[in-house]
Structure formats: C-alpha cells, structure tokens
C-alpha cells in the first residue's frame, strides 16, 4: 500500500502525547526484546532506535487492543489478528498503566465517540447543540450513525 512517508516522518517529529524508552518485541516468532524510544503522536505509535532521528517504524492505533502482560508490560494487537502482538516492557507498573491508558484513548475512533458523548450530554443539559458554535453540527463524522460506505 502506498503512503505519504515524508508526512509520516514529519509527524514523528511533532510533540508527543507520551514518549519513553521501553523494551519492545515484535510479533514475529523468535523476535527479541530491544530498547526503543517509543513516542505517541496523535493516533500513531512511533518507535526509534535510541540514537536515531528517523523512526524504525510506526503503528496506526485504530482497532487495536491493549492488554496487560505481566510483569509491568503490555501488548498491542489488532482486531483482525488478536494473537499477533507487539510487546512492550515498562520500567514500573505505574509507567505501564500510564501507557495503557494513553494508548486506549489514542485512536481517532475513541476521540470521535468521546465527542459524540459530550455533545449529547451538553445537549441534554442545555437543549442546545454545542457543535453549532463551530459550524460543524451537520458534519457526518459527528453524527451517531455516520455515513454508510
């Protein structure tokens, strides 16, 4: 699949929601744990060799599942193949919980559901649609049902 790699590289240089040096192990059988600089930017998780400016790779975090892996680690897998896991080892349980929380909230789809939730709550309390002030109340992406493909 073609993609605009330059823009993805530029994105990897943007300020991160969360960044840390973690142990990382790929999903392939026999892969070993390596130290990586892991950086969460919008709905992408970038991972760098600790001394390099360009990422080794990126994971788009849509339709993913974040699972705790003992001890003080977690894994990311994707809905279409739940057994294929990217493993991460954290320095502490607290760091692990912090990352798991951030990754679960990092998808566009999660953000969208939050917006719809807040919109409904505010509308219930005030009787007014809070998206009107932004001029986006009719946007398909913020409706409960959404557009059909």
């Amino acid at each position, binding site marked *: *699949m*073609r*993609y*605009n*790699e*330059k*823009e*993805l*590289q*530029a*994105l990897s240089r*943007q*300020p991160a929601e969360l960044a840390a040096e973690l142990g990382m192990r790929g999903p392939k059988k026999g892969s070993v744990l390596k130290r990586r600089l892991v950086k969460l930017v*919008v*709905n992408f998780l970038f991972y760098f060799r600790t001394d390099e400016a*360009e*990422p*080794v*790779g*990126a*994971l*788009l975090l*849509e*339709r*993913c599942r974040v699972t705790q892996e003992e001890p003080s680690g977690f894994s990311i897998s*994707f*809905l*279409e*193949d739940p057994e294929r896991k990217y493993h991460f080892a954290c320095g502490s349980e607290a760091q692990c919980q912090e990352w798991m929380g951030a990754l679960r909230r990092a998808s*566009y*789809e999660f*953000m*969208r559901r*939050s*917006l719809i939730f*807040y*919109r409904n*709550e*505010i509308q219930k*309390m*005030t009787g007014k649609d*809070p*998206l009107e002030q*932004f001029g*986006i109340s009719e*946007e*398909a*992406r913020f409706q409960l*049902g*959404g*557009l*059909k*493909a």
Partner: protein
Amino acid sequence: MKLNERSLAFYATCDAPVDNAGFLYKKGGRHAAYHRRWFVLRGNMLFYFEDPASREPVGVIILEGCTVELVEAAEEFAFAVRFAGARARTYVLAAESQAAMEGWVKALSRASFDYLRLVVRELEQQLAAMRAGDCPPPPRRPRTLPPKENGCAVWSAEPPAASPAPNPAPSSAPSSAGASAAGSRPGPAPPPLPPRRRASAPNGPLCAGSFARLHELYGQEVRALRSQWLRSRAQP
C-alpha cells in the same frame, strides 16, 4: 519506515461508517495523467482503491498537518491536499461535481486528529464547567471601564478631573474619559472583546501552544472559502 499496513488495510475496509466516500480523479504526479479512484475517508486517513469492490487500498494519504485548497487546474472541480515542508507532495484531486468537490473540501479540512482533539477538549471543559455549577456573576465595578483581555483594567484609576489633558466635552463614554485620565495612547476605543473564556482552563484550546493551531485551522477554512468566492466572482 515500517508501518502496520495489514491493519491499515483492515481499517480501510471495515464495516464501520465512513466519513466520506466517492470517486475522485487523482493526478499521478506533476506531469502525469489523472486516474479515477474510489476514495474513502475514515478519520485522518484518506484511502484510495481501484474501485468500490476492491478488498485492499492502492494507497492512503495520511492527512495530519495538511491544508485543503481549491486550485486552478485543467480539470473541473479540482482541489489540492497540501503539506508543509521541503519536498512535500501536493495531491491534486478532482471531483465529478461542484457539490461533491465542496463536500470533500469540507470533510478533508476537518479530518485531522488534532482538530478533533481540540473540539473534544472544548466540549469537555464546557461540560465540566456546567457540572461545577454556574459561574459567579462578575463583581460590579464602580465605573464601567472596559477591562483588558487579561483581566487588568486598561485605564488608570485617576478621575478625569485630575487629568492634565483638556477634555472639552463632558464625556460619558468610559473609553474617552479613561484615555484622557490615564494619559494613555489616544486613539479609537478598543474593539469589543470576544466572549470570555473560563479562567479555569489551563489546558484549554486557547492556551499558548494550541492557539496557533486553532488559528491555522480556522485560517484553512477562510482560505478555502475565499478562493471559492473569488472563483465564483470571476465567472460571468
């Protein structure tokens, strides 16, 4: 750079509702021909397929950080997805009708995760403020002096009578009285203030770093609308 392309392909073709879909012509490169492709916008990803029945996208345009503009092109209903930076690619696309083009420009302009996050944060704060109860009414001022945006009074507290500058007409307008009294720069009264932001919003959308982004986002819309208006004026 490695990318979880298989997961990307599943995200492209999953059952969930899409944010926009339709045929667009995509220019291959600067001097290349247009190819008709089936485009699907989901979140901040713009996928393109050979046709609606394809099981895997030909490619994807990651939309974070882009601006969307109308363009002058040989093709009708053309618009561009532009990225900043040296050697950045500009994607020139063309819709099949005016309405489709406008729909795509609107949808793509608001597709970034960044934009969505700003809106969510704003609503989050609104809801939190509502749940915390009503804001106390602003304290009554002895004189109706317009405050500066940061809450400090613009004008000094000296009464007009103490002012060395002559003030021929007894002015009831606070700004002119204030201007003479404070000896501040003469000039027109300050423009009306925008709606007050809640003070308890340290991470609100208008905090230092995000204001630039908010400005840029609204600027995109303004630029797109302006181009559109100029084009419509140019037509007889």
